């Protein structure tokens, strides 16, 4: 047994013993910080959700009067920005912070203080972004902030400045926490926890963290240019003086496309943890799942311009980006098939977590299927900037990322609190979500094909547009209700939920080998790992996994 002892001493973080608010402000414990990330994310989820409900209420009928055009644009912009940068990314960092050290048998993250700093940068960035409401200059140029619209002569208020400055701050935090996660995974694994034995969630977090540190800097550069243009009078996107607005599009989507995988890869990892446990089978094709993740990460960095088919890059560039984008469907399809094969002939236990995991596969595949459609440039030319895109991205973001994160929430909530989330409420939550997602987002496909553009605050009273928008809005209200059920479930179960014990799901990874919630140092003694299912080996010494 090779022991990996670092030649450099590591100090353990100070454990704050005082309770109350100060404990949460001063904490450097990865579990506390993970929970802070998740609570923050949930808060912004509600904020972004309220914005979405207003948007849908406005679009429920033709010539809606609920929001004026400016407020509509502001809510539209802030909804997208919030959901991507302040909800899904922080939620993923929250889960990663909480689970990665536990899953690899470590006592904490590699840099506990940097970890706290990353979290507080997220908070400050989020406050900066939302301070724009107080200051009366809410960003209203959509979440991708295309110049020249966002240049100083065309957007007179400070909205884009708040947007760029706020996201620069959160980006620094995201990069710092990703570096932290990579070093943790590479250096702090328990003895015997080889890379080839890492839980798949940890694998995905590792790949994901590399994507974050390589995909966010271009956006940071772009936001710097934008801020310089707006505040210092430089000419990066000033066409009259030789600037080129395509530069922004390239920089933005250089981040933007990896970003959509950043928002889903760790969720793939969660699904790959949850399905085997509830199907009572080893995950099918561990190596394929891990390798396809690397393939997705690699490809996702080279397909950004499929967001720019209508920008006129020319036939050669378009042809390449069509082909490269279609390729991504292959490793993604591999993942879906491995999950199905894992469930095949398993003794499936449909807990709420498993329901969400299975629902995730179905909804994600619907969103995934429109992906290759949109990757075909001529199709994209037709439906670009229409509700077809909105349907596609909401199926992968809500039906994919959010539902996967919900599966993770039901699965790991007992570890974090010691109590199970209520299963009856969970079922309400699940079925409302499934109904809400499909009722809200499926009609958007038709709206897009009928030519309804996104970003418009209202639409004329045409025969097809009205019923489809009406149905979609009903779905959005159902989704809102499902989220309220979820929040109620968390609030009530955290206090009075059924006690979970250390290992309620009879699972196999190391986080279940310690108490719920885990003690400050996670493990009393460092576990020794001999297979991909270390806890199985502990529970079944007569029949350990052999690899």
């Amino acid at each position, binding site marked *: *047994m*090779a022991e*990996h002892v*670092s*030649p*450099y*001493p*590591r100090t353990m973080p100070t454990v704050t013993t005082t309770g109350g608010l100060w404990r949460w402000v001063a904490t450097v414990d990865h579990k506390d910080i993970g929970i802070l990330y998740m609570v923050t994310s949930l808060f912004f989820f509600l904020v972004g959700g309220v914005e979405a409900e207003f948007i849908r209420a406005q679009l429920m009928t033709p010539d809606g009067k609920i929001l004026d055009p400016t407020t509509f644009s502001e809510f539209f912009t802030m909804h997208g920005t919030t959901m991507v940068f302040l909800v899904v990314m922080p939620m993923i960092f929250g889960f990663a912070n909480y689970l990665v050290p536990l899953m690899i048998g470590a006592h904490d993250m*590699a*840099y506990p203080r*940097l970890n706290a700093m990353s979290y507080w940068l997220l908070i400050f960035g989020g406050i900066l972004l939302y301070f724009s409401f107080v200051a009366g200059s809410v960003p209203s140029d959509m979440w991708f902030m295309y110049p020249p619209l966002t240049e100083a002569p065309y957007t007179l208020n400070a909205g884009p400045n708040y947007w760029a400055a706020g996201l620069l701050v959160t980006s620094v935090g995201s*990069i710092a926490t990703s*570096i*932290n996660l*990579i*070093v943790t995974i*590479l*250096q702090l*694994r328990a003895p*015997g926890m*080889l*890379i*080839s034995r890492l839980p798949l969630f940890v694998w995905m977090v590792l790949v994901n963290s590399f994507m974050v*540190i*390589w995909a*966010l*800097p*271009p956006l*940071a*550069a*772009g936001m*710097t*240019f934008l801020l*310089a*243009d707006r505040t*210092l*009078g*430089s*000419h*990066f996107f*000033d066409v009259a*003086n*030789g*600037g*080129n607005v395509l*530069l922004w599009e390239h*920089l933005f989507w*250089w981040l933007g496309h990896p970003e959509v995988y950043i928002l889903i890869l760790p969720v793939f990892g969660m699904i790959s943890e949850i399905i085997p446990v509830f199907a009572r089978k080893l995950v099918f094709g561990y190596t394929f799942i891990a390798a396809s993740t690397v393939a997705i990460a690699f490809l996702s960095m080279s397909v950004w311009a499929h967001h720019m088919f209508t920008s006129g890059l020319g036939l050669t560039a378009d042809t390449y980006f069509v082909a490269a984008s279609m390729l991504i469907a292959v490793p993604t399809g591999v993942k879906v098939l491995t999950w199905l094969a894992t469930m095949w002939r398993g003794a499936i236990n449909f807990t709420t977590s498993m329901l969400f995991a299975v629902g995730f596969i179905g909804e994600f595949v619907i969103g995934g299927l429109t992906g290759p459609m949109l990757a075909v440039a001529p199709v994209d030319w037709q439906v670009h900037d229409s509700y077809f895109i909105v349907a596609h991205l909401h199926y992968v973001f809500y039906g994919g990322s959010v539902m996967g994160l919900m599966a993770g929430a039901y699965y790991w909530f007992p570890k974090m609190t010691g109590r199970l989330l209520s299963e009856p409420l969970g079922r309400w939550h699940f079925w409302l979500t499934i109904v809400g997602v499909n009722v809200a987002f499926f009609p958007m496909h038709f709206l897009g094909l009928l030519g309804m553009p996104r970003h418009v605050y209202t639409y004329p009273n045409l025969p097809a547009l009205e019923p489809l928008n009406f149905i979609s809005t009903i779905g959005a209200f159902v989704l809102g209700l499902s989220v309220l059920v979820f929040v109620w479930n968390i609030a009530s179960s955290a206090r009075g939920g059924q006690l979970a014990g250390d290992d309620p799901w009879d699972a196999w990874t190391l986080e279940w080998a310690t108490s719920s919630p885990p003690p400050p140092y996670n493990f009393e003694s460092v576990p020794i790992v*001999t297979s991909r299912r270390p806890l199985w080996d502990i529970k079944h010494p007569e029949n350990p996994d*052999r*690899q």
Partner: protein
Amino acid sequence: MASHSTARSTTGNGMSRLEGIQRMNPNSLGVLLFISSEVVFFGALIITYITYRTAGPPGPTARTVLNIPLTSVFTVFLLSSSYTMHRATSRLVHNDASGVRKWLLATVLLGAIFIVGQGYEYVHLYMDSVTISRNIWASTFFVLTGFHGLHVIIGLIAMAVIASVIQPGEDHPWGAAGVEAISYYWHFVDAVWVVIFPVVYLWALFS
């Protein structure tokens, strides 16, 4: 246990490289990852500079307003600071805290001279009314060299802090870990200048 050791031996070279990473100084590994992120950032800035080199209406360009001989001199100071940094890290092996400190401070001095040179350059450009808003070349020039200068200044502060932490005659593992990490950062900042200097200054001689 037997199966474990087989798994280890069959993975061959890749695994031993991974073990090398595992035994690295954690601070250095973190800084290397940070640098890989910075490479992308500066890559974006440099590509932007190159694509905008000849864009826009006529105005000041690198050829007409930059004092290339003077900057070449200051470049020598910056690049030689990589040598002094190398001397600082080579004293680490001998556990010679005062030697490390001496060479670190020499590095700070050389870097500071470079920054003074950059400040002098900026002031002269300002007096020629070449500012970030003058034309697109100036925009890209100031953002690119400005961000590099900012990185130099951050490096100077970090080196000064580490030099003050390391006390002579003291075996100071944390200080040592910091020296190695900051040396990676500093060599990176120099390497960025090795790209910027030809692209911005030398290229101007030939266009």
